[in-house]
């Protein structure tokens, strides 16, 4: 395997070739690297068996508070000897002059037989030119010295005394190259880096995968000539149900299927003509007493069809291709299959020649563009379309047919009361279902969990 070295490693190797045993501090100076870079470089070289670190302990000596005092003014016993070297002095005078070292000075001089006391006077007996400890005190001074450099006997004299000596243990690192490190020909190493090494993981910022699917579908509809309309998620029952020929006692309009907003009714729901004609259509066909208060109740839209029908009623176009895309709601128990809130796409074509085969053709084209070519159509039922169909698409992964979009032609009972005279083709369906196929998910809740692990790792281009 080729040897690959980081710049840091190369600098350290070069320095050690010049100066074979070094400390981190000397390496810092010679390589101009930071302490952290030196530390890392040494670790890398150690792992590669190119450098050895010898660790040793060093005892460093410096003077404590009393030591420094004595370095300045002399040892206590020297101060006493100096006071009496020209003749005896009174004990009380000596005490006054020596202050807090008086006791130590008298004790030590008496012990070494240097003085004598006569009645209340102290008399000098011997005045040695150098006392034990004085040499060491002078050697250390205000600096720091290795313990090895001092006379142990003389030092021990000072070590006995309180606050004279401070001893620090310092760990010492000595770095040198191993034999293979020494034989390394650094000049032959290229500027290559370790391209095979693992690198840290970083995370992408991105659109939500479901949004990607929504955008993709939006663009397909636009290229097919459809324009997007937006509408509110809160709607009156009038537009969500009544205008779509869903009778007021229909099971879909019960609390258990639809979210009704607590205590909220719309004041103005539609024009009086629209209300009159829609209610007539209900009374004549479904045979019941239509109640405007029921129509006023606000709901969370159960489909985006309420947005398209309102748009048609307001604009009455003779020709149009429109779609709307957004959240819809069902009062369901949340499970891996069901959400209370999901996205729906809904498209309509208005035109005098709009027909069922065209409607099927648009579906086929749409599915082709999202990569689904095996489709078939089955009849079904919706309260507001006639005829009504559903698309079945073949899922290769699951090897079975699954139901996707529902479609149909708006019933005259829907269009006529709202003044829409041309046939209206309509279709729609849930987007999460398509996105689940795309992302190979078997739990629809994943789209709204905002689980960073999934969002950060999911493949974007599918």
């Amino acid at each position, binding site marked *: 395997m080729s040897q690959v070295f980081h710049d840091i490693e190369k600098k350290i190797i070069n320095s050690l070739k010049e100066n074979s045993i070094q400390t981190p501090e000397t390496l810092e100076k010679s390589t101009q690297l930071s302490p952290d870079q030196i530390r890392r470089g040494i670790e890398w070289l150690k792992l590669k068996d190119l450098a050895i670190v010898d660790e040793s302990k060093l005892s460093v000596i410096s003077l404590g508070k009393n030591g420094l005092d004595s370095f300045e003014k002399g040892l206590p016993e020297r101060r006493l000897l100096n006071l009496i070297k020209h003749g005896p002095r009174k004990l009380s005078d000596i005490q006054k002059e020596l202050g807090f070292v008086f006791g130590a000075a008298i004790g030590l001089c008496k012990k070494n037989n240097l003085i004598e006391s006569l009645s209340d006077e102290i008399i000098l007996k011997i005045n040695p030119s150098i006392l034990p400890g004085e040499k060491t005190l002078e050697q250390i001074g205000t600096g720091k010295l290795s313990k090895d450099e001092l006379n142990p006997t003389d030092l021990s004299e000072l070590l006995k005394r309180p606050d004279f000596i401070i001893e620090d243990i310092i760990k010492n690192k000595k770095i040198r190259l191993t034999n293979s490190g020494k034989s390394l020909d650094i000049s032959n190493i290229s500027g290559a880096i370790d391209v095979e090494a693992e690198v840290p993981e970083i995370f*992408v*910022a*991105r*659109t*939500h995968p*479901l*949004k990607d699917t929504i955008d993709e579908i939006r*663009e397909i*509809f*636009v*290229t097919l*000539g*459809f324009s*997007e309309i*937006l509408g509110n*998620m*809160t709607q009156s029952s009038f537009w969500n149900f009544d205008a779509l020929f869903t009778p007021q006692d229909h*099971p879909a309009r019960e*609390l*258990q299927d639809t*979210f*009704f*907003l*607590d205590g*909220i009714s719309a004041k103005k729901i539609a024009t009086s003509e629209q209300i009159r004609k829609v209610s007539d259509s209900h009374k004549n066909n479904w*045979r*019941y007493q239509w109640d405007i208060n029921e129509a006023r109740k*606000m709901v*969370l839209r159960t489909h985006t069809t309420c947005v398209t029908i309102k748009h048609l009623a307001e604009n009455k176009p003779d*020709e149009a291709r429109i779609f709307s895309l957004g959240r819809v709601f069902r*009062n*369901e128990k*949340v499970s891996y299959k069901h*959400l*209370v*809130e999901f996205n729906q796409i809904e498209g309509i074509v208005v*035109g005098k*020649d709009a*027909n*069922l*085969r*065209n409607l*099927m*053709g648009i579906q086929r084209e749409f599915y082709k563009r999202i990569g689904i070519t095996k489709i078939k*159509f*089955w*009849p079904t*039922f919706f309260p507001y379309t006639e*005829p009504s169909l559903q698309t079945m698409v073949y899922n290769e992964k699951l090897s079975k047919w699954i139901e996707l979009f529902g479609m149909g*032609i708006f*019933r005259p*009972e829907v269009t006529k009361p709202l003044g829409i005279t041309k*046939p209206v083709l309509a279709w729609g369906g849930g987007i999460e279902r398509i996105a689940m196929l795309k992302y190979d998910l078997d739990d629809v809740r994943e789209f*709204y*969990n*905002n*689980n*960073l*692990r999934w*969002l950060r790792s999911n493949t974007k281009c599918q």
Partner: protein
Amino acid sequence: MPVIELSYSRLQKLIGKVSKKQISDSLPFLGLDVESENKDLVRIEYSPNRPDYSTDYGVALGLEGLLGIKTGSVKLIIKKSKNYSILVKPTVSKIRPFVTGIIAKNGKIDDKTIKQLMTMQEDLHFGIGRKRKKSSIGIHDLDKISFPLLYTTTSKNHKFVPLNSEKELSISEIITDTQTGKDYGHLLGQFSQMPIILDANKKTVSFPPIINAAITAVTTKTKNLFVEVTGINKDDAEDMLSVVATILQSAGFNLENIQISGANNSSPKLQEKTMTVDPSLINQTLGLNLSTSKIITALKKSRLNAVFKGKNIVCTIPAYRFDIFGQMDLVEEVALGYGIQNFEPTMSPSQTIGQINPISLQLKSLNQTIIGLGFLEALNSSLSSKRVLYDMTNRDYKKIISVLDSKSQEHTILRDSILPGLIENLSRNIHESYPQKMFETGSIFNLHDSISEKINLAVISAHKDANFTEIKSVLQTILKVGFGIQIQTKTAINSIFKDGHCANIIFNGNIIGIIGEINSSIIDNYKIRVPVVGFEISLSDYILKLL
């Protein structure tokens, strides 16, 4: 949608000369979804507008037509008889004013037939009967009943032995103690008098719409049936009766009529109706070019009768097809009879130019700008909860918009802010690596005179060094690059944010949002271990409409 279980072998016996594969291939083209299949049994889902598909007899009628084995409409043959009559007393008028019924004789009833009839009855009650409120059926053993009958009212002390019981119970007891009483008693709630059908010997036949008498129960020994339907609307009751009559005739019974009179009641007619349809409407709507004879064949395959008259097709529709309101329904019958699988999809050239909504376009560009700053897009439900929106984030709980009877506790209140949801998202990701930076654009809801829906943007950043400066830089850059807007921040107090680390976002003198370091008590509530900063601004009012 209702689901029933069918047996292939029973269907083969009813239809004759047909393979199991032919049946399973044809079911979807009648509009019946196959839910699951297990050897001879198949579970299908049918549309609530076709209650005749609630039994295998009805499905067999449809299949015979589609496969071309027997086509044209099913004619009800009802023998005129004077032996059976029901007299209605005016006292029922306010409670359940109408009764209708039919006699069905000389049928063979085995366990499977009883099962089919019971499923049909249940489905009719639930669907077109609107949980028995509109109309309900009772099927009885004719030979246990002495005619004429009386449909009248009685007190709650009236006693009889109801179905599935061994002893006599009073009506009060039935309502409070039996399951059907508990389920449907409310339909009669406010009345002191109860509807009742009594026979010539004053024996109780039925207590509609709750329960039949035990004595008239149908068993495998039963040969002749009496069917009664009661309801609040005569036409609806007769619609329901027409389904039962058609099914019983298909099951081999001979029908006889019942004379009904009193209090605006009359004998059921169960008549066919006729409807005229223009062949060009059919061809235009379907995108086909069918000859009139092909149209007539298709209608007959859908079990209707049709003839060509003048320029139009005159269609005869049996009473049980009350789902047919008008011409468009006949168009669909042609499509089904012709066979949906025979339609070739076509693509008509577009005459229109497609356009993305300007709001969607702006939001997409905004998203790209924010992603450029290293933020990940999140999506949360608009329907959130008191816990996430208010409790966990110390926010004021006022003027909320909540939904009724939600099946999920996590989805009860429409969000008035996006930020609380994003903070909650962080709490689910405390084991993922930091920094965690997310944003969401979406609708928020407020209640004034009516509900206002606005689009907001919220951005959040969580990591060990997150601070006010960072998030203000993000805000400033997004609005400058996204919309060319300069904003200011002015000290503010808000329970979501730390005091002294929170500001209103001002644009042109208007407060458009709030920014700051998230209050540490909220971070503690969620057990998040790093500082969190964020902001939320309203896009609808001052930003999106600028363009």
